[in-house]
């Protein structure tokens, strides 16, 4: 919105939107006005598949502290998962 700060990353995976599951294409991460969260600025993540239309979107709006906690938590879970020799990521 006003900051225009937005980072984008290609994604593989699935997201569950209002019409059910859809394949993920991209994560758009912005530091800007949220639509719903009660702050002037927030860390907003949109998981989208634009090829299916703008409605294929799962949105979260986080405080900066929550966003950092989420990023750390993701990294911690990844670290544990990738360290476990019993776990292999593969297409079933």
């Amino acid at each position, binding site marked *: *919105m006003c900051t*225009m700060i937005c980072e984008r990353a290609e994604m593989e995976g699935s997201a569950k939107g209002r019409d059910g599951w859809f394949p993920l294409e*991209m994560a758009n991460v912005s530091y800007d006005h949220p639509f719903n969260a009660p702050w002037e*600025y927030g860390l907003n993540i949109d998981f989208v598949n634009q090829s299916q*239309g703008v409605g294929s979107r799962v949105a979260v709006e986080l405080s900066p502290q929550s966003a950092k906690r989420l990023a750390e938590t993701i990294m911690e879970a990844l670290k544990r998962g990738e360290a476990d020799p019993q776990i292999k990521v593969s297409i079933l």
Partner: protein
Amino acid sequence: MYTTEQYEGIIAETITINGTGGDAIHTYLARPMGPGPFPAVVLAHHLPGWDELYREFTRKLAHHGYLAISPDLYCREAHGTPEDVAAAVRADGGVSDDQVIGDLEAAAKYIRSLPSSNGKVGIFGTCSGGRHVFLAGCRLDCFDAIVECWGGNVIMSDDQLTDKQPVSPNSYTKDLNAPLLGLFGDLDQSPTPEQVNQHEEELKAAGKDIEFHRYPEAGHGFFYFDRPIYHQSSAVDGWSKMLTFLGKKLA
């Protein structure tokens, strides 16, 4: 001033106009019933999109006796809920300044052409729309009054410039060619009070006809009654200042 014994009627509907490049774009039009002549206002919606709030603002201006027109500045990008469309536009770095300016000019041209127009057209916008109306007031000569509400990124650093927003709007200050009313909250972070000070000083130095009002208890978007950032006393006073300003400049 509206009094209870008056007849009142407005017509509000979605129409299509030809915007930048002749592209057909959806536009919300609200106008008082009757032959007029009525002054007109173009509304430049905020970055959260062509949403219900802006339809309400459009109807509110019609209630106060204005032909009011709000083009969908994201019409080419996508259709869906206003939030979904705005999220896609946000991810794509916004819409280009040139495209928006052309669409706002087209809206002004359309509304001035209505038989009930008095020939005067103002423009109002908030947030990114505040930025756009300042740009429009500098780059176009079709507006008779500008209402800039908390325009973010009116002052941009070189590293904020992009292909879509290639020039910091304040670079055009000397070209502003209509009276400008500016409404700002002192708790806003974009624009910051320091940026508002700079904006005001540059306009004064250029000898422009401006009227700035600052609200110490308000932040960004203090007209937005659907959000926690709404600030009641500032919003009521801001609307009053705006209607007084438009009444004088568009008579």
